[in-house]
């Protein structure tokens, strides 16, 4: 077996816990980093993100010889729309749509 003689020079009572511990530590670090650097994990664990996950999945529809794909792009509600023509000779188009900015609150009296 490849490297099977390693336990002749590394004491298993030290080497095995060190190996298993390092695997556990790396795994913990990676998953902790995912939880710390994303927004969806906490919402998902709270049970409110299942519908959001379904909504976040890109949807496609065909209309008038075009395939239209709508995909949410971020937490601000923006969506990316890709319009792909079914036939040749026409160019694909895309746009990122944002919700209109709220009008400024009235000032003065």
């Amino acid at each position: 077996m490849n490297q099977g003689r390693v336990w002749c020079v590394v004491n298993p009572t030290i080497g095995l816990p060190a190996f298993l511990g390092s695997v556990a530590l790396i795994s913990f670090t990676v998953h902790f980093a995912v939880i710390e650097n994303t927004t969806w994990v906490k919402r998902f664990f709270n049970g409110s993100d299942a519908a959001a996950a379904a909504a976040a999945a890109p949807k496609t529809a065909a209309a008038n010889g075009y395939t239209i794909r709508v995909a949410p792009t971020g937490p601000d509600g923006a969506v990316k729309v890709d319009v792909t023509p079914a036939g040749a000779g026409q160019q694909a188009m895309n746009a990122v749509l944002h919700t209109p900015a709220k009008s400024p609150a009235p000032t003065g009296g």
Partner: protein
Amino acid sequence: MSDLDDPERVWPTGLTIRESEELHKHVIDGARVFFVISLIAHTLVYLYSPWLK
């Protein structure tokens, strides 16, 4: 368990090559089981959570 002055023993750990390779087989088997379980777990997470969506 054979004697401590067994000439097949390798130091510093004192295991024979056969013992070392048998232990290593269990380590590798455990790693394979761990890999398969983690593969299943990641597949389920990919399918049923917003991960990478």
